């Protein structure tokens, strides 16, 4: 009823009138604002026209289309590429299933991932094979969505599936005797970027959690170890840690054990992220009022239950933005592995530029690399915002 009266009391003006009023009020309210408006309008126009011209007329996108496979999967043998596709299909399988089971946030993410598949499939230069695989992936997502929607009991198995996925993917990619061996020196491009980032993020979380708890521990040895570790890692540049992992780890472990280059980088990133994560989580623990600890203790809860059910859920929720910040940081920092001889997305881009055939195409390559990073970082940021909101229930 209120709405109705409001509408009748305020007769609406024709829309072009309102637009002109808005312009007057916001852009041309004084002579100074008018000048500002013109200056900015000119600048923006020049930039936009220049970019559009460059993108559609000057740029030589052939360098991307000719090297698309290299940029995405590196030197991975063409004959074995089906293994990479199987890995992606596994991920799609779990994504679809999680969408059906949890809806909400997963739905938005799934739509984002599916649109990525569609966009890549529609690129004019990709092979027919790629299109077929992407189509299979989309079908898998839809099919598993239906499964997840109808069998809500699958939640636990799906979570286990997500955790089992990492070893399975590493196994598939490497072969380990069952398939033809593909050494990690051949893994590259965006595949490598993703692998290192995901392993670092997943493995650093439990380590960071333990370090954060350790730093607050009453046991002096545990506390001093945690403080020492965190401050040591935080006081050293990531590059140094990567070099240490590449050069020193083999020394520590002796001659008999040969650790893969990629694994060394993964270890380096994990140890580095863990220290930063520990400080983030400690910040969250610090923000929990003393009364929460006391209430839990007064009920007779032991330390483990108190942490698991009372303190950590609140502390972690409080630091989701900071943690995702660390994760996005580490995702971008993976491009540093180029320095220790691995060819991730950026490293591959640099290799391509140095190929005489593609001389002078650095702009195109770097813009493509930046775009890929931009898309994935934004996906992570978006996921974090959604998770924050969905966890905010009942909290004021």
């Amino acid at each position, binding site marked *: 009823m209120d709405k109705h009266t409001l509408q009748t009391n305020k007769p609406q003006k024709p829309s072009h009138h309102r637009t002109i009023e808005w312009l007057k009020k916001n852009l041309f309210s004084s002579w100074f604002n008018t000048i500002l408006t013109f200056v900015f309008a000119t600048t923006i126009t020049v930039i936009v026209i220049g970019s559009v011209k460059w993108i559609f007329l000057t740029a030589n996108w052939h360098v991307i289309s000719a090297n698309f496979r290299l940029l995405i999967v590196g030197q991975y043998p063409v004959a074995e590429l089906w293994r990479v596709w199987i890995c992606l299909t596994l991920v799609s399988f779990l994504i679809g299933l999680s969408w059906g089971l949890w809806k909400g946030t997963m739905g938005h993410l799934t739509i984002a991932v599916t649109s990525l598949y569609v966009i890549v499939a529609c690129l004019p230069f990709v092979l027919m094979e790629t299109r077929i695989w992407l189509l299979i992936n989309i079908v898998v997502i839809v099919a598993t969505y239906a499964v997840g929607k109808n069998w809500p009991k699958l939640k636990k198995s799906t979570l286990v599936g997500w955790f089992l996925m990492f070893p399975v993917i590493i196994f598939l990619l490497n072969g380990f005797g069952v398939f033809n061996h593909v050494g990690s020196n051949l893994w590259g491009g965006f595949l490598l970027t993703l692998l290192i980032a995901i392993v670092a993020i997943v493995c650093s979380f439990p380590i960071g959690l333990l370090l954060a708890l350790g730093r607050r521990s009453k046991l002096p040895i545990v506390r001093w170890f945690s403080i020492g570790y965190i401050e040591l890692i935080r006081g050293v540049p990531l590059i140094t840690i990567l070099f240490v992992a590449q050069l020193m780890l083999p020394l520590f472990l002796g001659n008999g054990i040969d650790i893969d280059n990629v694994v060394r980088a993964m270890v380096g990133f994990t140890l580095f992220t863990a220290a930063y994560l520990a400080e983030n989580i400690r910040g969250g623990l610090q923000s929990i009022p003393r009364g929460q600890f006391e*209430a839990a203790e*007064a*009920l*007779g809860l032991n330390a483990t*239950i108190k942490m698991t059910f009372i303190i950590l859920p609140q502390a972690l929720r409080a630091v989701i933005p900071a943690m995702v910040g660390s994760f996005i940081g580490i995702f971008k920092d993976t491009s540093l592995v180029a320095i220790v001889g691995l060819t991730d997305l950026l490293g591959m881009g640099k290799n391509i530029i140095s190929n005489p055939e593609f001389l002078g195409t650095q702009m195109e390559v770097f813009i493509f690399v930046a775009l890929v990073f931009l898309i994935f970082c934004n996906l992570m940021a978006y996921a974090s915002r959604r998770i924050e909101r969905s966890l905010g229930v009942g909290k*004021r």
Partner: protein
Amino acid sequence: MLKEFNSDTPLDQREDIVVCNQLNKWFGNLHVLKDVSLNVKQGEVVVILGPSGSGKSTFIRTVNGLEEIQKGDITVDGIPLSNDVADIEAIRKETGMVFQSFNLFPHMTILKNITLAPIWVRKWPKAKAEKIAMELLERVGIPEQAHKYPGQLSGGQQQRVAIARALAMQPKIMLFDEPTSALDPEMIKEVLDVIKTLAGSGITMIVVTHEMNFAREVADRIVLFDFGEIIEIGTPSELFDNPKHERTKLFLSQIL
């Protein structure tokens, strides 16, 4: 652990469930508890009064080990309070505590708040814990709030949930640390009413409060604290109508 007592037994013939002997505590140089000795009988309701900063809150928090003491012994329900975690947890199982600032867990529904400890500490099946939780919510008069979050409730309702949460562990002793001090005046009554009914149910209670009428009504004995010491102990009528100590008289004259 003490035996169950018969509620027909007169107070002075029952066993002591809380025994505090010569407690001393310092915060740095500040001597906050000075040789405090107090025994509480099974089923007795003891109300602790005193000016702010007199150490009464600190004292009640030593009973379940939330505050450490530097000297003295505490025995609760036959278990001596030591540095051993197992002893402390055993005592806390038998003592419920209600705080001034409620301290509900904001990320859990009311029902989860109440059932958490019974499920994990008493190892009750979920169904049993929820059934008892609902009965308790019924008792404190807010069963319809079971699936809300603490942030959606008023202060008085939150404090009643906190009482239900403490009672869910079926403790032998309830400790109330200024349960109405953080409440708006119109909500104080609803919480005090719940505590009053509880006092008649035979559970042992130690209550720190500033509510004089409430103290007079429910207390078996009243303890007056000042400067970290017990000044006077007596029945409500002894203490209010016939105070012996000068400081008791001063305190009563200031508030009544």
